[in-house]
C-alpha cells in the first residue's frame, strides 16, 4: 500500500488514562478532537490503575472514535489512514488502541502508522501553526518526560538533553503533594503561585555536571522537603502561595536556562515547547518574554493540545506517512519506547 501524500487521517490515543480520537484533513486541519477522560474510574485510587485503564479503553475506544467521525461529518470510507500511539505508555492500555486501529485499518483497507507519544507531543506545536519552522529546538515537558530535541527539516530528532531523575511534571506533582495542595499538581501550583511572591523563598537550581543540557529536579524536591520540615503546619498554610511561587520559579528557571542554552548550542532561531507542563502560565509568560528578548520564534501549542490528545497523534502520523513510514499488522505495543515507534523503537540514545 502506498499512501498518497496527503489524506484524511484518524488518530487514536490510549496510552494512559484518556481515550482519545481525532480526525485531521489532508492539510492538517483538525476536523474533530474527542477526549474521554477516565478520571472517575481512577479517582478513588489517587492514581491510574493500569488494568482498569485497559478495561475503560475497551469500553470507550469505539464510541469515542465514532463520536470523532460524527463531529468531523465523515464516514469510515472517508478515512485515508490511521495513526495510533505505539508507546510509551501502559502496556495494556496501548494494546487496546493498537488492536482497534489494526482491525479498522484492515477492514477499511487503509494504511496504519504507529507513532510515539513523544512524536505526537512534538507535532502538536505545528497543529495551529503549520508555518512554524521545522528546524528548531523542542522541549517536551510533561509528567513523564523532560527532553530537549534538535528537530531538523526532514523531521529527524536528535536528543540534546533530558532529565536524569524526575520529570518536570513529576516535580510539580510531588511539590503540590508536600505543600498540601492535592492532585494534579501542575495546575494547582500554577494557581496558588499567582497569589505568591516567587522571591520570598528561594530554592536551589540544580546543575548536572555530566551533561550540560540535562535536567535534574530531585534535589529541588528534597530542598522543599527540608524547608518544610523546619516550618510548622500553620506557617506552611500561611506561606503556601509564596512557597508554591518559589518552587514553581525554580522549575521554570531550570527549564528556561537549559532550553535557551540548547537553542544557542543548536544555532536555531525557533523553539517549540510542548507537553502538559507547557500549559503552565508562568512558564508560558517567561518563555514568551525571553524568546522576545533573544529574537527566537516561539511555538506553544494551544492549551487543548498540551495535555494528551489524539489530534497530535494524527498530526504525527501525517508526518510519518510523508516520510514513508508504515506499520505492519504485526506491530506491537512498545510501553517503554521513546522515539520513533516505527523505526525500530527502543530507548532514546544520546548522539554525541
Amino acid at each position, binding site marked *: 500500500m502506498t499512501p498518497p501524500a496527503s489524506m484524511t487521517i484518524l488518530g487514536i490515543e490510549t496510552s*494512559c*488514562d484518556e481515550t482519545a480520537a481525532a480526525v485531521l484533513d489532508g492539510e492538517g486541519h483538525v476536523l474533530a478532537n474527542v477526549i474521554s477522560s477516565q478520571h472517575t474510574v481512577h479517582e*478513588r*485510587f*489517587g*492514581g*491510574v*490503575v*493500569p*488494568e*482498569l*485503564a485497559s478495561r475503560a479503553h475497551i469500553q470507550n475506544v469505539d464510541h469515542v472514535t465514532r463520536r470523532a467521525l460524527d463531529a468531523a461529518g465523515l464516514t469510515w470510507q472517508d478515512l485515508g489512514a490511521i495513526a495510533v500511539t505505539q508507546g*510509551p505508555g*501502559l*502496556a495494556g492500555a496501548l494494546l487496546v488502541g493498537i488492536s482497534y486501529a489494526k482491525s479498522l485499518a484492515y477492514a477499511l483497507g487503509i494504511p496504519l502508522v504507529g507513532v510515539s507519544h513523544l512524536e505526537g507531543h512534538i507535532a502538536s506545536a505545528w497543529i495551529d501553526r503549520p508555518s512554524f519552522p521545522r528546524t528548531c529546538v523542542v522541549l517536551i515537558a510533561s*509528567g513523564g518526560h523532560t527532553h530537549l530535541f534538535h528537530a531538523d527539516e526532514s523531521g529527524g530528532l536528535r536528543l540534546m538533553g533530558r532529565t*536524569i*531523575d*524526575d*520529570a518536570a511534571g*513529576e516535580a510539580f*506533582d*510531588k511539590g503540590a*503533594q*508536600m*505543600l*498540601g495542595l*492535592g492532585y494534579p499538581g501542575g495546575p494547582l501550583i500554577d494557581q496558588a503561585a499567582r497569589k505568591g511572591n516567587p*522571591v*520570598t*523563598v*528561594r*530554592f*536551589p*537550581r*540544580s*546543575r*548536572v*555536571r*555530566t551533561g550540560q543540557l540535562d535536567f*535534574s529536579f*530531585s*534535589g529541588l*524536591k*528534597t*530542598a522543599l*522537603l*527540608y524547608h*518544610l*520540615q*523546619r516550618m510548622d*503546619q500553620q506557617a*506552611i498554610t500561611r506561606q503556601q502561595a509564596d512557597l508554591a511561587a518559589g518552587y514553581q520559579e525554580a522549575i521554570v528557571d531550570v527549564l528556561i536556562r537549559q532550553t535557551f542554552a540548547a537553542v544557542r548550542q543548536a544555532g536555531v532561531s525557533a523553539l517549540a515547547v510542548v507537553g502538559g507542563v507547557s500549559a503552565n502560565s508562568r512558564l508560558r509568560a517567561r518563555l514568551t518574554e525571553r524568546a522576545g528578548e533573544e529574537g527566537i520564534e516561539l511555538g506553544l501549542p494551544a492549551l487543548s493540545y498540551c495535555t494528551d490528545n489524539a489530534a497530535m497523534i494524527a498530526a504525527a502520523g501525517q508526518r510519518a506517512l510523508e516520510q514513508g513510514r508504515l506499520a505492519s499488522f504485526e506491530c506491537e505495543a512498545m*510501553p*517503554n519506547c*521513546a522515539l520513533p515507534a516505527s523505526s525500530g523503537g*527502543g*530507548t*532514546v*540514545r544520546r548522539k554525541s
Partner: protein
Amino acid sequence: MPSRRPHRSIPGPSPAAPVGPPHAGPPPVGKPWRMVLRSSQQTHRLGRCLGTLLQGGEVLALFGELGAGKTSLVKGIADGLLAEPTEVSSPTFTLIHEYQGRLPLVHTDLYRLTASQLEDTGLNDYVDGHTVTVIEWADRWGDGLPSDRLDVHLSHRPPATRRAILTARGPAARRLLDALRSRLSANRPTRAARQTRVQLSRPRRAPH
C-alpha cells in the same frame, strides 16, 4: 541546612493507613544490614547490584519518604536487570509500571491504596515465580503481601545523605541479601565515584 534534628513527617494528603515501617509480618531472617548512601549514585549502584543478582520471583518492599531515593534505587535495579537502558519513572501517577528484560520487572506504589482497593487493581496477578516485584509502601497490602521478601527502608540523613536498612523476611530474601553483601564488599567504590553528580547552587538568603 538543618542540623540532625528528629525527623518529622511532611504535610500532605493523609494516607489510608498510618505511615511508618511495617512491624507486622514475618520476623526478619538474620540481621538487617544498615548502610549510609552518600549520593544518588551510591543509591543507584546499590540498586544495580541488586538487579544483577535477581533470579526471578523476588519481592522487594521499599519504604521511605518523598526524595528518600526510592526511584533512584529502582532505576538502578532496572539497570542491573533489564537488557536495554530503560527510562524508569516513579509510579506515583500510574500506579503499576511494567518493564521487560532479562526478567520481567513490576514497579508499584501502594501509598494511597487500602487493602480492599488493592484487590481491584489486579496487582496480585503480577506476583509470580518469575516476575521481580518492587513495591513501595508494601505495608498497605496487609495479609496479602508475600512473606518472603526483602524490605528496604530508605531515610533522609540531612544534609545530603540517605540511610538504607535492608531486612530479609524469608529464606530467598536472605540469600539475596547475603549475595548482595559479598558483592558490594568485594568492590568498594573509588573515591572519585563517590562524588556527587548533581551540584546544587547555593540558595541566596531570602529577604525577610
